[in-house]
């Protein structure tokens, strides 16, 4: 029953939701929202599981002085540093309001950290491009040329390099053409393939053919 019950629930819910897409009549019209709300409630409580696991693993690591135990303490301390002010020191206001300690931590710690992580992409793109854009064969050469045109066409330097050319042959125009046509065509093709893959995978999950995600074979 441990595997059968989840499979039955999956099948019934899956088929019902597919039907509700085509049947606007009550109660089908409410099912999508109802199941989404149920899922959100479960996910919200599941966060507690994750937090408890995080605290347990890291405190355990620190207690047993395992490898990198200090980082475990940093994780727990950071967690408490944000949660306690958020819950206890908002002075009756919403914890997200400007001026609260939580907002100060958000604005002066969290925002710069997130921006920094995102900014790392600039460096990684450069190193990945240096390594990947080699004209090894015809296809790689075409990729390289497309990258060349788009990278320069999307910045003002492209204009200065090619302003002497007729308008339709300037780097910006070529970059726009690449984005509008070959790139869009490729995106559409991959999107169609992905959609079909999702349909097939979803059918396998609904019919119970695919069970690995619940520990089945």
């Amino acid at each position, binding site marked *: 029953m441990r595997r059968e019950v989840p499979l039955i629930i999956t099948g019934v819910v899956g088929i019902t939701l597919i039907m509700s897409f085509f*049947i*606007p009549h009550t109660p089908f019209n409410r099912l999508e929202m109802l199941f989404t709300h149920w899922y959100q409630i479960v996910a919200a409580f599941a966060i507690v599981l994750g*937090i408890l696991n995080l605290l347990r693993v890291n405190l355990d690591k620190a207690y047993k002085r395992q490898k990198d135990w200090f980082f475990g303490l940093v994780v727990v301390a950071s967690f408490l540093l944000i949660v306690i002010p958020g819950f206890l020191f908002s002075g009756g206001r919403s914890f997200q309001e400007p001026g609260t300690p939580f907002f100060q931590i958000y604005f002066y710690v969290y925002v710069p950290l*997130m921006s920094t992580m*995102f900014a790392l992409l600039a460096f990684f793109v450069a190193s*990945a491009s240096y390594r990947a854009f080699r004209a090894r064969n015809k296809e790689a050469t075409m990729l390289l040329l497309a990258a060349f045109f788009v990278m320069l066409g999307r910045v003002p330097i492209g204009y200065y390099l090619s302003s002497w050319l007729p308008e339709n042959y300037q780097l910006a125009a070529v970059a726009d053409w690449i984005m509008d046509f070959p790139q869009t065509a490729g995106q559409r093709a991959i999107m169609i*393939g*992905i959609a079909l893959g999702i349909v097939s995978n979803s059918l396998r999950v609904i019919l119970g*053919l695919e069970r690995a995600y619940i520990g089945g074979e």
Partner: protein
Amino acid sequence: MGVFLFLRKDMSKTRHLFFESKSTFFFLIFVLSLFFLFIPFSARAEETPEIEGETLQETEAPPAPPTDIVAKDTPNDAGNSITITWMKSEDDGAGRNNVMGYEILRSTVVDGEYEFIGNTTVGAQQFMDTDTKDKVEYFYKIKAITQVLSSISLPSRPAMSTQQWFNTDRINTLIAVLTISFAIFYFIRRARGGRKLYVRKIAGLEALNDAVGRATEMGKKVFYVPGIMDMNSMMTIAGITILGKVAQLTAEYETKLEVPTSRSMVMVSCRETVKEAYTNAGRPDAYNDDMIYYLTDDQFGFAAAVDGLFVREKPAAIFLQGHFFAESLILAETGNSINAIQIAGTAAVAQLPFFVAACDYTLIGEEFFAASAYLSEDPKLLGSIKGQDVGKFLFLLAILVGVIFATAGIFDLSKFFVTR
């Protein structure tokens, strides 16, 4: 029509259709004739300029009222909705060009009191009243408003909202779903019958064994990242399915496996999968819950944590299989910097170029979804891939036909593919 009926000698059919008494019938025909002949001409005269404001300049005049008010049950919905359309006022964007918007008024009685239920901007010709009770008749009037004056239309015919059992706008989707599903079921059935199905080699999946083998030889760990989204994403489920196969290999080869997760439910699901895989491989003792752990829901917090783990633990093989966003390149480049063999798989189109550039193998889109079937070699699952291919063939055919028609200037066919 009223005159025609009035003059018609043989009234038997009409009477049979409508009335019992001859005199009542003729009287009503006469009244209807008046209605159809005279009232439309006076409609324009029934402009009821409602004067607002204390003074009225002699040059100001109320705008022309909207006309042709049509109220109908909103189709393909769960009721409680009526759609009202109208021809906009002649002074909306033309004429005096002083219309600022429209107010929608409603009543349950044609000559009763009308209440305000909403407004629209200038130029609008449609409004949806989503506050109706089903099976109750409503009448609507539209008021064109300027800065100080307004004029009101004739009432619409009565309309009632009802629920529909089938959304006819989605019939094209239903046909597509049924066709593709039928193809999938057909090939699953054929595969069950023992017929061998050919599926081309997918390099990334062929390399799974090699990647885990490499980690075993080097005595290093295997890291598996199942994406950053929750269980409601199909990519996460596909990623967890592949995790089962990888876990079976690590159990057989006695290689250490670590699975950092970004969502609690994914953590729980991964634990079930890995535990089962280790049990199937005959190594339940080698399984430990702490192999799969939760880090954080935050995208870049997760990326930072996993990067730190990569750099400190230096795994020999990294699997990035699931739903990723901007952190994909950060993870892949860090993995590349520690010389790990990386096999990525995702259907997030925007992240595919990063994985292709930074990883050794990438499962692109549908290859990623086909992985579980491919790895299991189960005929039933392979049959579903075949059915998927039929769907793709039909799409290709539709695109080809569409291109030919569009080149010939025929665009009507594309309307069939619009989904609402």
